[in-house]
């Protein structure tokens, strides 16, 4: 099929998005377009706005300014298609401790209105090796297993965009390796992946595109292989030492 008649696949997009919490500005004029097949590493120092950006993309937080678009339409005016296309993992698991892994997934399946629930359930239980623990209350599972159930919940409705905020937190070496493999396989299926991690090397092993955030602004957005890493890191270091000097001056004046 010639490229000009290829069906366009819906993209997730931020247009000049800012997010304000009281006096503090978590995001400032961020524009970003993520297309199917992209694998984006969100990186930056603490407080750079990574989590807020992911929450805005996931439709959990409404931007103070700007727009979030899915397939060209505003996700807050027409949220259903975007929500059906997004899977999100955050610091919280979104699970109920008193319910078993299976019951949690059944609940999520009903919320997403899955017609092929049993098929999807089997697929995610297989994918995350959860069959043996499917009937155990989540409260009794280790942090690593809880993270797997949380991942299974995010994968359950077969999303096209997977947003992950520090997905490796709490996972042991074997689970981390398995998740890395899974995310690489995910990219191979032409779906989009956007994730944040504190471990740059780990992220760089998976992603092809880097979005470097600092103070709520995008400092770099482009191919990871071409990123001016030394300059970006130097920028963070000089900002940090500037902040420290300011703090020291303030305390000596007191």
């Amino acid at each position: 099929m010639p490229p000009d008649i290829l069906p366009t696949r819906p993209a997730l997009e931020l247009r000049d998005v800012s997010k304000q919490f009281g006096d503090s500005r978590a995001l400032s004029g961020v524009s970003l377009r993520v297309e199917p097949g992209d694998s984006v590493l969100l990186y930056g120092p603490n407080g750079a706005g990574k989590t807020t950006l992911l929450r805005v993309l996931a439709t959990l937080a409404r931007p103070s300014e700007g727009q979030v678009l899915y397939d060209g339409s505003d996700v807050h005016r027409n949220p259903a298609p975007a929500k059906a296309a997004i899977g999100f993992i955050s610091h919280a698991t979104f699970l109920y401790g008193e319910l078993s892994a299976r019951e949690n997934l059944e609940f999520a399946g009903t919320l997403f209105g899955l017609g092929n629930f049993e098929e999807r359930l089997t697929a995610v239980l297989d994918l995350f090796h959860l069959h043996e623990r499917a009937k155990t209350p989540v409260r009794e599972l280790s942090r690593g297993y809880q993270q797997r159930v949380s991942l299974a919940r995010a994968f359950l409705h077969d999303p096209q965009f997977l947003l992950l905020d520090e997905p490796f937190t709490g996972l042991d070496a074997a689970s981390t390796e398995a998740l890395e493999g899974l995310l690489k396989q995910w990219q191979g299926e032409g779906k989009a992946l956007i994730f944040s991690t504190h471990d740059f090397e780990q992220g760089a092993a998976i992603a092809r595109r880097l979005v470097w955030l600092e103070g709520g602004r995008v400092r770099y957005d482009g191919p990871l292989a071409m990123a001016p890493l030394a300059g970006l890191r130097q920028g963070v270091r000089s900002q940090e030492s500037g902040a420290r000097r300011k703090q020291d001056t303030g305390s000596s004046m007191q």
Partner: protein
Amino acid sequence: MRTLRVISAIFAKDLRVEWRHRETLASMCIFGLLVVFLFNFAFEPAHEESLRLLPGLLWIAFAFAGVLGFNRSFAAERENEGLEGMRLAPVDAGAIYLGKMLANLLFLGIAEVVVVFAVSLWYNFSFLPALGGFALVTFFCTLGYVAVGTTFAAVAANTRMREVMLPVLQFPVAVPVFIAGVEGATGALKGDPLGDYAGWIKLAAGFSIIFTVLSYMLFEYVLEE
């Protein structure tokens, strides 16, 4: 149809969670019973006075038991950000409200039955002759109270002093249902004809409908940070 399925899934989930740890219902019943017990010791009303005092006493017990239940209902959601998990799905925020509200209505209803039963034993007072009218007025007032309580519990859940915030926010708004509950129950227990206190039932029903519809429509904004 899908909205109904979502509402019933949230209702069933809350019931299942409660069945596994039984914290909410137990604390609501115990608190309601304590209020009745303390009141009995504080005032020791004579049998003739009971009729005048009981409706107010019952609604004090229902109101505080309700506060505990509404707070617990959202504490369970807060633990692992369950509400956010629901908001990630393509469901109407109003459906989340109705699912939570129905579960709260059931829990408060059970606590009310326990408290009424205890009151009838302690005060040697039979509700049976006026049970129909009393149940009707209590149902509509409870519905209104739960409609308000569920909304404000969701608002308070995002604040630091949520346990204090909930009664401060919801009691002033729920005053009409408290008044209707006390006045309507007094009429029913005195054995007045239904027509004499039907106005209080209508007030409670109207309040419940208006507040439920408003909350259904605005719950999306309540859930946002």
